[in-house]
């Protein structure tokens, strides 16, 4: 199976993505991750204003068959949470890089973005 891996963002080995930005970035999980999880039924996310630390847990995504922790790809502050996921967690399955986004993060000066995988590097990992 071939999975979508957009080139305009960066990736973690733990399958989170972040848009490649200098100030405010969006965060979600990859097409590969949602496929592995199966039907997503619940997403637990931080609140607006919460600080994120790169590589630390920021939430949980649950499918019918599995629970998976979510890890922050960057250092920053949550400025928006995708409220639609509360009622429609299946958006993570349907559109993981679009409507299934999870957080919008205002990046710290030292965001840690440079250490992340490129699209090509991530594609190598999942293939």
């Amino acid at each position, binding site marked *: 199976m071939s999975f979508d891996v957009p080139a305009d963002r960066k990736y973690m080995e733990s399958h989170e993505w972040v848009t490649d930005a200098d100030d405010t970035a969006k965060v979600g999980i990859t097409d590969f991750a949602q496929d592995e999880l199966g039907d997503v*039924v619940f997403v637990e996310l931080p609140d607006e204003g919460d600080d994120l630390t790169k590589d630390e847990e920021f939430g949980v995504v*649950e499918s019918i068959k599995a629970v998976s922790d979510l890890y922050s790809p960057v250092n920053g502050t949550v400025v928006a949470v995708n409220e639609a996921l509360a009622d429609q967690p299946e958006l993570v399955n349907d559109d993981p890089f679009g409507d299934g986004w999870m957080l919008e993060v205002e990046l710290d000066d030292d965001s840690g973005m440079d250490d992340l995988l490129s699209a090509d590097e991530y594609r190598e990992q999942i293939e």
Partner: protein
Amino acid sequence: MALRKPPLRDVHDARGATFTEFGGWDMPVEFESITDEHRAVREEVGIFDVSHMGEIEVAGPDAEALMQRLTTNDVTALDPGDSHYSMITDEDGVIVDDTVVYRLPEGDEAEFLFVPNAGHDEQMHEHWTAHRNEWDLDATVSNATDEYAMFALQGPDAPELLGEVAEESILDLQKFEAKYATVAGVECWTARTGYTGEDGFELVLPAAEAETVWEALDCQPCGLGARDTLRLEMGFLLSGQDFDHEDDPRNPYEAGVGWTVKLDTEFVGRDALERVEAEGVEEEFVGIKLVDRGVPRHGYDVTNTDDVIIGQVTSGTMSPTLGEPIALGYVPTEYADPGAVVNVVVRGQSKKAKIANTPFLSD
């Protein structure tokens, strides 16, 4: 140890199924998506490969006596073609396994067929033969698990679909009745039983003919994932999860299946269960609905409103039909009334929940 494979393992693989280990078997857990498969069964029809379930045949003059002494229900009440749900208990009345017992038609080589859970067939074969020898009964016990495939065709459209493919009428079968029916040219032991709460049938057939029958019953293939969410919505027990002889020993009264225990028969565990029945149980198997958001899972603590641990979730999921988090588990009887407020501890967070009637779908 190598996993046992159902006869159609490669067929399912080619169809794109994902697999999981279950009871020592390599079984399809998901074909399309668990929720799609679940909905197909609730609204139309789906087919499950349940060839991991055991098949033990019991024959001979003392077959009935042997069955009666090793299962809690009354097999003498079964006419040929009848079946019932039953428990296999130890001397202490603890459930070793749950099973469906079929009395086969007269003239069949065996008199009874019973279906232990995945991975329990060898243990049950030993249990039966050891007791037969101890009691000096004239009966043969055969573990036919590897000879047979087993499919479950479940859903409101199951009778119509099977009716189109079966040569004999199957619509005259009442629930828990069974007979041989020819499906796509293959003789199948066809029972109106199932584990989903829907109308439907379970078919036991020669493993070598499995693909012919599977292909003829052309509908949504379903994996163990949907089987679990469907049975959980009905509050049905899952062996090894809602009871476990070693890790979570339960008697039938605690597990809510005391109705399968016929104390006017003689069976292993009877005296212990008579005492339990007279004294009552301290814990009960209940349904739990989360009021707060979250997904309950096996092993999560159940607490009272003072945050004292009172029990555990044995099974839990987000109900695809209800869109609500539901669970099963054991709590002390004083907390077991529907509507009682408890908490389920979901990854360290206390979530408000209520004891609920099962099946959950009847609310």
